[in-house]
């Protein structure tokens, strides 16, 4: 077991755990955007930063990736952490000036307006956290989308910006997106995921008659787990 401190309190943890894991297990609040327990941590949003020190020298690290260390002292709300976090939120707010999630996070840190000129503010929803792409690769396993381009034009997109052929319409990207940047709609018997330019026919439940999941997704699951053909003919609710 590794013993270390967070905000003056002592904790014991297993080797290999991250600071964020231990913090969350113990009810210590550290904000995140690009983090999700089911996905490998990525370290892109930098919101989860904490100040660590061991014998004098201190530095800022992302708690989602930093492994627990014997004798480490972690501060989750030091002035340095707060000022960094505020500027990161200002940068996000400047990029996503009309996005409700970002506005809310920013106002929690008393930021109403970013420090940049109004004419340079943008109206994005996507913060390029990569959760959609990482989920599609690690959880769903189809890698239908990826982060394309480099730098300020980096964004999640389908190959060649054409309809994502490998997409199965599961909607995981839509559910996991922290800012609502993925637009998905179930309309009658069709599901549309606008961002990847794809449309899917939804399966109708033999019992209740509701359209409940894309046929392509169900086919994928059936093949992957070697399930019988009729397995999904009845929706989970009716089962």
């Amino acid at each position, binding site marked *: 077991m590794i013993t270390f401190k967070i905000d003056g309190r002592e904790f014991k943890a297993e080797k290999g755990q991250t600071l964020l894991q231990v913090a969350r297990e113990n009810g210590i609040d550290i904000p995140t955007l690009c983090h999700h327990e089911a996905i490998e941590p990525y370290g892109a949003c*930098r919101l989860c930063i904490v100040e660590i020190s061991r014998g004098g020298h201190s530095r800022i690290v992302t708690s989602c990736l930093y492994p627990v260390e014997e004798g480490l002292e972690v501060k989750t709300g030091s002035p340095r952490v707060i000022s*960094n976090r505020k500027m990161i939120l200002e*940068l996000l707010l400047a990029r996503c000036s009309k996005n409700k999630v970002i506005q809310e996070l920013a106002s929690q840190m008393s930021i109403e307006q970013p420090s940049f000129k109004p004419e340079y503010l943008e109206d994005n929803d996507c*913060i390029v956290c*990569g959760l959609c792409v990482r989920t599609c690769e690690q959880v769903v396993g189809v890698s239908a989308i990826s982060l394309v381009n480099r730098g300020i034009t980096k964004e999640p997109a389908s190959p060649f910006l054409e309809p994502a052929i490998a997409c199965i319409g599961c909607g995981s990207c839509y559910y996991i997106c922290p800012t609502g940047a993925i637009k998905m709609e179930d309309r009658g018997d069709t599901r549309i995921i606008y961002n990847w330019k794809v449309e899917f026919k939804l399966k109708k439940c033999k019992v209740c008659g509701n359209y409940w999941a894309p046929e392509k997704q169900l086919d994928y699951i059936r093949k992957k787990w070697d399930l019988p053909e009729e397995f999904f003919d009845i929706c989970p609710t009716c089962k």
Partner: protein
Amino acid sequence: MSSKLRSKQDLEALRKELMKRRQPDKPRITICGGTGCHAYGCVRVTDAFKNEVARQGIGSKVDIKTTGCHGFCEKGPLVVIQPSDTFYQRVKPEDVPEILDKTIIRNSIVERLLYTDPTTGRKITHQQEVPFYQKQKRIIFGSNGEIDPTNIEDYIAIGGYSALAKALSEMTPEQIIEEVKHSSLRGRGGGGFLTGTKWESCRNAEGDIKYVIVNADEGDPGAYADRSLLEGNPHSVLEGLIIGAYAIGAHQGYVYVRNEYPLALANMTAALSQAQELGLLGSNILGSGFDFNVRITRGGGAFVCGESTALMASLEGKVGEPRAKYVHTVEKGLWDRPSNLNNVETWSNVPIIINKGADWYRTLGTDGSKGTKIFSLVGKINNTGLVEVPMGITLREIIYDIGGGIREGKKFKAVQTGGPSGGCLPESLLDLPVDFDELTKAGSMMGSGGMIVMDETTCMVDIAKYFLTFLEEESCGKCVPCREGVKRMRQILDDITEGKGYEEDIDLLDRLSATLIDSSLCALGATAPNPVLTTIRYFKDEYEAHIKEKKCPAGVCKALIHYYIIEEKCPGCGLCVKACPQEAITFMGKKKPVALDESKCIKCGACYDICKLGAVGKE
């Protein structure tokens, strides 16, 4: 080519044979074959020599050799005649018959091709006496001029691979690491980390499969020392790499060469193949039982791939996105295995440390920075080129004694070191000794060795904007502080250079800088503020002129300058009229000064450049 070398003795025997075959007194014409001289047309010069020698049938009297870069790029094409050490500069194909006739046949000099000392007016015959070379200490780079980089035998003839033989036959891996540690060699790529310590960590890391990597992704604009080493003496890098692999326990190595370096790629590829043929690479190297293979890969055009984790991602066939280094790459690097990455110049320091010993190496340099460093000295300097100097030499000595001072008689303003991660140092710091820690203390850094000299016509605010624009394009885009922060800093600087800046902008730049330094994922973001911070620190008056007075003192920022016709100097020749893309200048008749309509002027500077009579003014 000789057969495989199976022992240190075989190597020695080969060297002796090669020495015997060479006639040290036979004249050799060595022509610099670096990319810089290529751009000057050295290939035509080489061809001219070969053709003329063949035509005259004097092949028995003289050898012709294309060598690695000699370093004095300003004066290329460079031709050095050995053994007399006669130094000819700016040689053209038309000069060839005269050189052969006078210098080879008749043992005299072609005066007009000699280097002229600008201060004394004296013509200098020998390379060693050329001021550019005198204060240099070319323990690494000097060999370039002696060898044909595409021929391993040249390298062996000057003692190449003897360090490898010594390491494999007389030293244990631990002893090698101790020697490198004792030398205090620090990484020459920019990080300045103690090489020996890095090797030791990698050796001690868990795992049987380990890798060694040469980082040849030299991306700092203005730095090309690594390129010239790879082109000019690839075996020196390879020898260091094999020694390091043996010390660390790695059996697979990679050389990652920047995409924009075709000659370096070609020469290193040839070097690998020749080393393999001789048994210096592959299985049972020199009969030691040590196996080691090297693969060479090209980059795809991304500055960020100079960062070690991004480079490794690229080696894995993925995009060059860095990752957190809380677990060091020496423990989990390429394919999650212990990987030791070092810069080109770092690797090429290893053979000499092994051969001459760490104690000898420590006599060079300062307490904190041992050995030498190769810099690309470029910009507004007279003697542009690659210089190798002992650490501790002052900036003044490099710029004035070696560099010959500022071009066109202008005044020194600043010297930029460390590329986009570094900073601009002013005149008041000219006596700063060049040393890792001294440069860092002053707000800059050593970086990979770019040293760009600037004069009064350089606008320091524009320079800060330039570096931020560069980084904005090169940012991988993964983390928020760098992707969004560099863009915002660049926008602020755009505004300042366009006369739209506010006093509060400086404070905002400071706050953004603090966040980038603390919270960026990798060193690209974390060091991005350096050019801005150093220019604000040392050239605050220029920022204030741009913000408060809406003026650009150096005359660079287009929105803040205007061009005008100096009527007394204008004879009405009309050259500028033709040059103007906007038809903003009107011809007013012969012998009458032209008229410039400022409302149409887009400040492109075409008229300013084309007028040789100084009749176009700028302020």
